[in-house]
C-alpha cells in the first residue's frame, strides 16, 4: 500500500518554525522498546546490536510506540501492529539509503555495533 504514514521513518516538518525532524530508529544500546514489549515481538541481537521485530508476535499494544525516545515506532491502526525499522535485513542496501538523493542517511557498520549514522538538519 502506498501510504507514507505507514513508513518506518517518519519526517516531522514545521515550515513555520523552519525545521525537519527525522524519526528513525537509532538502535539504542539499551532499547526501551525491547524492555517494554510484553509479547517478545522485539528482541535485541547482542552480537550485532540490531533490534529485531517479529511481526507475527506483535499484538499491537503500542507500548513500544510510547516508550521510544526517538518517535521511531509508528502504530499501524489498520493492521493492529507496530511499524518499525527492520534494517532491511536481506537487502544489499537499506531501501531508505538507496532512495535518498542527498546522502543524508547511510547505514554503516562500526567496530562495536551496527550504527545508523544520520545527519540531522544540516545547514
Amino acid at each position, binding site marked *: *500500500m*502506498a*501510504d*507514507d*504514514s*505507514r513508513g518506518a521513518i*517518519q519526517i*516531522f*516538518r*514545521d*515550515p*513555520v518554525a*523552519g525545521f*525537519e525532524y527525522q524519526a528513525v530508529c537509532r538502535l539504542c544500546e539499551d532499547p526501551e522498546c525491547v524492555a517494554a514489549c510484553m509479547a517478545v515481538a522485539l528482541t535485541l541481537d547482542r552480537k550485532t546490536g540490531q533490534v529485531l521485530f517479529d511481526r507475527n508476535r506483535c499484538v499491537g499494544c503500542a507500548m513500544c510506540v510510547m516508550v521510544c525516545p526517538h518517535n521511531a515506532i509508528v502504530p499501524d491502526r*489498520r493492521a493492529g501492529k507496530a511499524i518499525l525499522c527492520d534494517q532491511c535485513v536481506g537487502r544489499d542496501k537499506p*531501501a531508505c539509503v*538507496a*532512495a535518498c*538523493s*542527498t546522502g543524508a542517511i547511510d547505514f554503516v557498520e562500526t567496530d562495536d555495533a551496527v550504527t545508523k549514522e544520520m545527519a540531522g*538538519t*544540516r*545547514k
Partner: protein
Amino acid sequence: MSNSLGKMRSRAAVVDLTAGTVAYEDTPPEVVRSYLGGRGLNIAYLYKMLQPNVDPLSPDNVLILGTGALTGTGAPNSGRFNATTKSPETNLLGDANCGGFFAPKLRYSGIDRLIIKGRARHPSILKVEDGTVTIEDARAYWGMDIYEIDTALHNDYGQSIEAVTIGPAGENMVRFACVMTGIKNAAGRGGTGAVMGSKNLKAVVAAGGPGFEIQDPDSFVALNEELKKYLTNSMVVKVLGRVGTPLLYEVSNHLGTIRTRNSQDSQFEDTLNAEVIHEHIDKMISCHSCIVHCRHRNTYKGEGPEYTTVGLLGANLCIADTANVIRLNNLVNRLGMDVSSVGGVLSWALELYQRGIIDDSITGGPIEFGDYDLADRLIRSIAAREGFGDVLADSSQAAERLNDPECNYLTAIKGLPQSDPHDCRYIKAFALGIATASRGADHLRSRPTLEVFDLPPELLREIYGADVDRDPTSYLTKEIVVATHENIYSIVDSVGICKFICHGFNSPKLLKYDHFSQLLNAAFGASFSIDELKAVARRVVDLERAFINREGVRRPQDMLPRRYFDEPLPHGVAKGHHVDRDKFFEMLGRYYKLRQWDEDGMVPKSRIVELMAPWNGGKEAAS
C-alpha cells in the same frame, strides 16, 4: 483495442457547499484512460460540469483539486496536484499545478479528486479522512494568514495532516489569490484562491486513510531507484538542487531580457544573482518524493525566492536589495497571493504613474519604482483590498479605472500578467508559447529552450520530429517547438510529476514519454504505450483550448503585449530585437494548422465530440 488500466483508479468527491452534501464517484475508466489525472482529468471534469459564461466568483463556479496519476506512488517528484477552475483573473481557464505534501496525503486519504461547487453559509473547512469528506466550521480560522492557518490546523487536527489553505487575499477575493499548502507552495496562477474564498472555504485538511495499492512494490521501487540515478546525473538537476530557479536570472540578465522597470528596461543589478541569493538561504528543502530539492528556506522566516519572484518583485519593480526582495517574497506568500501577478500589476501601476496616466487622486500619493517600503505597503493593501490596493486587486480587470483600457502598459495576455521574468521580444518561441498558453501569459505551458542549445542535429530531429531553426530570433518552425513542449508538459502535469525533471525543461534528457509509460505500467500494472500517452497530451491541450474557445477566445486573444511589437529591447545581446506583427501572426497561423484548429484558433466541433466521448463510454453519439 484500448489499453488496460490495471490497478489504476480515480475516485472523486463532489462537494456541494450550498447544500452541504458530498457525493462520491469513481471516474469512469474510459475517462481515466483518456485523461490520466491531474491537469488532464481536471479539465475533462471542468469542461463537462461548467456552464459557459458563469461568474467565476459565484457559487456556480467549480473548483477542482485533482491529484496526478502517479501522485504519492513514490515515483520521483510525484507530490503534485492541479487546482482547476474558471479564473476570476481572466474569466477564462484557471489551472495551476502545486507541489508540497498535500497531494499524496489527499490520495492516501482515499480521495483522488475534490470537486467543489456552491458556497458555504459561513467559513468552512473540508476534512478528508478514510475516503470520507466532512464539512466543518472554520469561523475561528477566518482572517488568519497562511503561516497562522498552517500552524493552527496542525495543532488542531494533528501534526501528520496536510492542508491546502487560503490567506487574507483569498478571503477578500483578490483576483490573483492562490490556493496554498505549507507556507510557500502555491497553485499560483489565475486566482484559484479567490474562488476558494468566494466559496467560503478556508482550507482542506487531508488526515490520512487506507492508502492505495501498487501492483508490484519491489519492482516499482527498483524502477524508481534506477530513475533516481539517471536523473541525479543531470547537470540541470544538480544545479537546481543547489541554488534553485534563481539560476535563470543571470542568464536572462546577460541576454538583456530580464523584465526591468515594467519592461521599459531589460537589464538589472547582479544583487539578484543565484549565488548572492544563496547567502540568504538557510538550506534547500523539497516537496514530497523529490530528488531535486530546488526550494529554499531563507533566513527571513520563509521559503523561496524563485526566479519569478526575484524577477518580478525585484528587477521589474527596480528593487535591488537582496534581503528586501526576499522579504517581499515572504510577505506575498504569507498573504496568499501569486507573486507573478503581484509584481506585474504593481509595476504596471508604477509606470502609469510615471507617465502621468494616473495620479495621486487614485494612488493616494506618489508611487515610484525602487521603493521597498511602498511595495510592502501596497502588497498589504492589495490583500486587504484597501484604498488603491482594492483597485490593483482586480488585476487586468482594473484597466478602465487605471486609465489604460487597452492594457498598453501591462505585460499580459488574455488578462493574465506574464509570469516569466524573461522578456519575450528576443526568443520567438517564448513569444509564441506565452501567446498560446491556455491559461494566459505563462511560461510553464511550454518555455521551449532546447532548439537554441548546442545539440547535435540528429538529436534535435528526434526531439521535434522535424528540422527546426536554431536561431532564437527566427519565426520559422517555432510552432513545432512550442507544440512539442506543450504536449509533454500536459502529460507531466497529468501524472502529478514536477516539470523540473521533465524532458524539455532546460534539458534534452530527463523523463520522456517512455519513462512515463514505464512508471504508470509498473505502478499499476497498466499498459500505456508511448503513442497512447501522446494522444492523451493532444487531448488535454485541445480540450483546454475548447474550454477557452467556449468562453470567447479567438485569434485576437492570442495577442502579445503591445510593447513586445512596438518597442525594441534596449540592452545586451537582445538589443534592438522586437516581435514583428506580420511574422508573429503567420507563425500563429502555422501553429493553428499544426494543431488542426481553424484559422480563428477554434477547435473543430467534431474534435470536441471526440474529446467528450470518453464520458459516454467511448461512444461519440451524444454530444
